[in-house]
């Protein structure tokens, strides 16, 4: 708060309206941000937050409205102008080149070249670029390995690369679109520190997030948007999380999940001592065993990179299982094809919605039938039944409140949260015996989270099994009946959810229990 210079309005957006065809994504929005401020944007999925920021960054031209940067009226008609004006943006979905190194990505589009006198040789000067990047990262506490390839570093690191990329281009105003959605709690802590260090050195930050706690922790001001309209701008220290949630969805939100006690049933999925390799050929899942019962939600708690992704891919037939067995309803399904496993009754909400979960160039309706296009009534023989596909889509859109209510909308034109809803709608309606839910509420607003949680509990109440994988301890603790802690490719502890507390879990997730055992041995 003490960093804010109230005399300088770095950003002033006035009366911004943005229409897509007839659809009004932003409706006469005003936004003022002062120098040195961390300003949060809060709103439901599809409220228009990303759109508003895309307007500021010059990706979209507003239908109406004016933008002032440092008091000067500007026409931001493309991102180059935004960058010139000192605006940098880190998108909801990263835009990095996987095969390039960190430095190569950061300098992309602004490459440093070797100069001989006045003559630009056109040779990349990677050495100098590396040095510059190292200086920047030291200055703001954004530590990265400049020579690592993007595909080899964690999502948290990738995000730092995105931020560095903006800073390298001289950004004074940073827009972060849901930066924490993909981060682990630890990484979120670090990001908040980085943001504070940035504003401490005169930068201004706009952050979009659905996590109210982060807003309370990090932001000075918060602007709330609902269905394209600005509702309010509040001083964060004056309001509670509950106030924020209510302003955002326009009704009371229930943060605790209602869950009645039920008896868990017999074992439906038996994972027996499996080993699965990662891309680098190391044992990411290393002798993992787990039993999943009917009528339970089993949460898997763990720090990212302890074998969760490989486990999910192994269970769903996307990655070979080197040894061990996976038994579903008494049948060995180890290393069967994804199709076979789906038909035997395992459905998955994948952790990477854009890579695995959706065909972005398909319409919503087409995405809804991804695993069942070959079944009645969606097709008969070899012929697709477009009427039924459409009808099915309409039903799901209604039931899961996907916005906009247009089944022909391409998945790529949906807001991030609505993309996630499409996947959840599809997987839950499969009514599988085992539902694997990986980060199911990533990027969802609190209202939608409430709904997803209800859906998962409903599955459980109907005697189905849910395997929940999440980096959010709150989510794991609220939903699970039992909690399994994964560390280094193994389950190191299984606890009853009502006996687990954050401290114990945190300790186990960091490998604490393992060390104890070693000491004892």
């Amino acid at each position, binding site marked *: 708060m003490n960093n804010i210079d109230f005399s300088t309005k770095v950003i002033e957006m006035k009366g911004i309206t943005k229409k897509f065809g007839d659809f009004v994504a932003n409706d006469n929005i005003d936004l003022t941000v002062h120098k040195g401020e961390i300003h949060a944007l809060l709103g439901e999925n599809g409220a228009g937050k990303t759109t508003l920021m895309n307007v500021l960054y*010059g990706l979209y031209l507003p239908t109406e409205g004016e933008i002032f940067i440092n008091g000067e009226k500007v026409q931001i008609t493309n991102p180059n102008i935004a960058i010139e004006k000192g605006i940098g943006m880190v998108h909801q979905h990263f835009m990095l080149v996987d095969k390039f190194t960190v430095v190569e990505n950061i300098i992309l589009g602004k490459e440093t070249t070797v100069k001989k006198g006045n003559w630009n040789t056109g040779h990349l000067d990677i050495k100098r670029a590396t040095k510059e990047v190292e200086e920047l990262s030291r200055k703001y506490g954004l530590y990265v390995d400049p020579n690592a390839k993007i595909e080899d570093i964690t999502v948290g690191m990738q995000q730092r690369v995105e931020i560095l990329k903006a800073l390298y281009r001289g950004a004074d105003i940073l827009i972060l679109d849901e930066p924490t959605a993909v981060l682990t709690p630890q990484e979120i802590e670090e990001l908040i520190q980085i943001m504070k260090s940035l504003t401490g050195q005169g930068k201004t930050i706009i952050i979009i997030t659905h996590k109210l706690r982060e807003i309370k922790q990090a932001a000075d001001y918060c602007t709330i948007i609902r269905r394209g309209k600005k509702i309010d701008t509040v001083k964060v220290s004056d309001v509670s999380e509950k106030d924020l949630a209510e302003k955002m969805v326009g009704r009371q939100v229930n943060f605790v999940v209602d869950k009645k006690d039920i008896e868990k049933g017999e074992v439906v999925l038996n994972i027996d001592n499996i080993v699965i390799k990662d891309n680098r050929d190391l044992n990411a899942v290393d002798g993992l065993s787990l039993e999943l019962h009917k009528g339970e939600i089993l949460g898997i708690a763990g720090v990212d990179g302890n074998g969760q992704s490989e486990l999910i891919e192994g269970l769903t037939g*996307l990655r070979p299982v080197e040894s061990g067995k996976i038994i579903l309803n008494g049948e060995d399904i180890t290393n069967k094809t994804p199709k076979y496993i789906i038909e035997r009754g395992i459905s998955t909400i994948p952790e990477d919605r854009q*890579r695995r979960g959706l*065909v972005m160039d398909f319409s919503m309706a087409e995405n809804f*039938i991804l695993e069942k296009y070959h079944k009645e009534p969606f097709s008969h023989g070899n012929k697709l039944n477009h009427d039924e596909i459409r009808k099915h889509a309409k039903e799901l859109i209604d039931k899961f409140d996907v916005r906009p209510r247009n089944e022909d909308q391409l998945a790529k034109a949906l807001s991030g949260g609505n993309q996630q809803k499409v996947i959840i709608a599809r997987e839950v309606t499969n009514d599988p015996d085992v539902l694997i839910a990986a980060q199911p509420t990533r990027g969802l607003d609190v209202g939608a989270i409430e709904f997803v949680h209800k859906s998962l509990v409903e599955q459980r109440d109907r005697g189905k099994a849910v395997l929940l994988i999440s980096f959010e301890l709150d989510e794991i603790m609220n939903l699970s009946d039992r909690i399994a802690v994964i560390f280094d490719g193994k389950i190191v502890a299984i606890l009853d959810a009502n006996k687990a507390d954050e401290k114990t879990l945190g300790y186990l997730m960091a490998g604490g229990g393992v060390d104890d055992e070693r000491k004892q041995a």
Partner: protein
Amino acid sequence: MMKENRLKFTIIAILIGLVIGAIILLAVGYNPLEAYGIMIAGVFGSPKYISWTIIKSTPLILTGISVAFAFKTGLFNIGAEGQFIIGALVATLAGYFLHLPPVLHAIVALLLACLAAALWGGFAGFLKSKFGVNEVITTIMLNWIAFYLSNFLVYWDKFKRPNSEASQKILSSASIAFPKEFGSSLGSFFNAPVNFGFIIAILVAFLIKYVLNDTTLGYELRAVGFNKDAAEYGGINVKKNTITAMMIAGAISGLAGAVHVLGVTNEISILSAMEGNGFDGMAVSLIGGNSPIGCIFAGLLFGALKYGGYKIQPIMGAPSEIINIVIGIIVFFIAMPKMIEGLTTIRSRRKRGGEVERSK
């Protein structure tokens, strides 16, 4: 809205191409108006010219559809040329060696040609899905193998027509040309080797459109083409679909070769260089916006440019290289808007009010 834009783009590109072509003609001392006049007259001047244009366009439409189809499934079929050669070769072999009643003979020859070319294309698909070898590389190599295989077989004494650089001619029972009696009553339109090929090409265009949009196979193929990770996750067999897609693409190009032999040439000759029917298909696919129906129009345009363009040479005395340059420039500019569009997505998104979405 997108479609209209594309059409507008394409038409503008053709006009730009023609204008630049005119400038070049002018620069080397020929009257462009006269040249274009000859071209137009050369295409529309008589019913016979029109039928020739259609005949020349037919294989291009088919190879265009072949490339477009592969593209929709996420593959670059550079192998249309080789698949065309295989189709032509097998159709000629079947047309000459088999003895079957009319109609049936033609159908069998067409089907065998399709099958052979499907295997030819499918082999590239197999190499891709089994060993991860990029189809661009394998199809280029398969083009050369097809080329030399064809020449090799034409030299085979049982197949070579004595005192010629070509194979034996197909039996008349295998021909898909319109019967002569039919033609004479209808005037000069039928003075050209009019055949069923064009009708086949149009049927294939609609069939492929149907397969892509309205069948489960098409759903699978498109899903794999757009995002194979998501397709795999959804239980679609990506490897099988890669092979299927290349087989179908191969079959269509093979059909192009077969139709060309059975309808027009009746034989295959020793090739000194590749004829370019498959490579032109890539341009046709591009101009047609990678849509099967678009390929019909693009193929006709391409065929007209080629057929009409070559008439400038005998009449005006302009060296044929110039005409090739003109055609090349027009094609280049037709391809340009796609490139320009791609490079300036950000600009156009803004102009059109953001209807063009950011793809991740």
